[in-house]
């Protein structure tokens, strides 16, 4: 399935999800997928129809347990752009 919309999430949807959001946009641009829409929100708002791909930090993996693996990226280190790029590549391939 083509990914059109990516949602980054964290506890209150303000700080770290915005960082991941900015990193994701940067990585997508680098990978030639600048047209994909990226947004960020709180983990309260995660539901399978809200986006085609969800990105959360490893500590929040439990909150995306209802999301199938092909629709989520769980980051070990939420500020590591190399990890993000590698995992996004796998989903975009």
């Amino acid at each position, binding site marked *: 399935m083509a990914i059109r919309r990516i949602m980054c999430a964290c*506890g209150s949807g303000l*700080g770290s999800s915005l960082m991941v959001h*900015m990193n994701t946009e940067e990585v997508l641009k680098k990978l030639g997928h600048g047209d994909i829409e990226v947004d960020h929100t709180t983990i309260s708002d995660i539901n399978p129809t809200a986006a085609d791909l969800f990105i959360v*930090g490893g*500590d*929040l993996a439990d909150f995306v347990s209802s999301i199938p693996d092909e629709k989520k990226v769980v980051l070990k280190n*939420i500020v590591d752009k190399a990890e993000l790029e590698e995992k996004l590549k796998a989903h975009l391939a």
Partner: protein
Amino acid sequence: MAVLGFVINILSTPAILVGLLALLGLCLQGKPVEDIIKGTLKTIVGFLVLSAGAAFLQSGSLLAFGEIFNYAFNMQGVVPNNEAVVADALTNFGTASAIIMALGMVFNIVLARFSRMPYIFLTGHHTLYMACMIAVILGGAGGLTGVELYLAGGCLLGLIMVLSPAYCQVTFRKVTGGNSIALGHFGGIGYWLSGQVARVLFGKEKSKSTEEINFPKRLIFLRDTTVSIGLTMMIFFIIVTGIAIARGLLSAVPAGITADELAASYPQFAHLAVLLNIGQETTTNWIVWCVTCGLSFAGGVYVILSGVRLIIGEIVPAFKGIADKIVPGAKPALDCPVAFTYAPNAVIIGFLSSFIGGIVGLLILIGCNAALPVALILPGVVPHFFCGATAGVFGNAEGGWKGCVAGSFVHGLLITFLPAICMPVFTQLGYVGSTFSDADFSWMGIIFGNMVSVTGGLVLTVVCVALYLLPIVYNYVAPKKDAAGE
């Protein structure tokens, strides 16, 4: 003159002013026109959503909670919640807050460039909250206005935006095992304290890391702020209302009076019409009322957070883009969950220990109340979870699991006592039901809230500017240990 009136009107309408800030940021980044329109409008909508959330939070539960608590215990009860106090304060100090936020970010970049604290503070909601608190204290209590207020406020904000990451970095570099990122969260002094307590008590002992022990992770569901706020506020409402009813609240007002008469004759119960079944078409059970009020609090905060998300969503990327260009080597100071992935067990242990510290602190405050009336600071789950968890990660990095427990316990005491000490400043300004929860807001509030009572006007402005310039002067005057200063 009509044009001038129009311009002044725009500048004194906070929602449009923050929209213009976003517009400026988007233009400076060279974004396409459609992105500029989208971002500007979303920012303005964000501010309006925030105001709506604030009104709902006040009328839906916060004011009622204050009245119930006062009846039950004859004392002032305060639930520390940044969003609750900020959203309300922004309606009065919106313009000043927006300008202070903008100046503070510029001054942050200047300090990152010219002092030995090369941090760019990227936690936008805390920048906004701190700007708001500074505006309330310098403008509301200190009586500064116009350029003086903006300059003094911008200087204080710019200063704390590098100072807080700087004192956190003492321990945070041990957490991350490097020096490339910093922590940007205004619970900073609490994390520093937690790290120091852990280091002094258990630094030499080398107790096991929290990550080497097996610890149940089920409490992690409290990371969802809507759930944790709803749960705690429901429990608080039920306990406090239960006690108030046991003390005769339901018969405190004669039956059959109208809602208008209630507000006029019993202003201390003005927001309890539904609970007391006055002027209502249906009768409400008190437990149902408590559940509704508790969850309304969570709903109010949810709406406010959505507004804040829209406001900072455009401003932070612009700030980061500009800062990256001007100070290429600066370290980003990021929100506290960045620390969580380094020690997930310490997150849960830190939360529990900090929360217990908060309960112990509350009992101590109750004890103090006999001798000296203080506001009772109730342990909110959100500050104890986010800040307590971060304090736990810091404690663990300095002193293993024992350091984690001790450090976050002390942190829990700290974020109970500091708001209690800070409360008189805010009570004077009319903020009675809530206050800032995180430690840096409190210490800034205590110092500058009391400073404004002894000085004001130009002197106060000069003091703020001088404090701001100090790290820059120090950088050029004091001898450097090594070339990088680190």
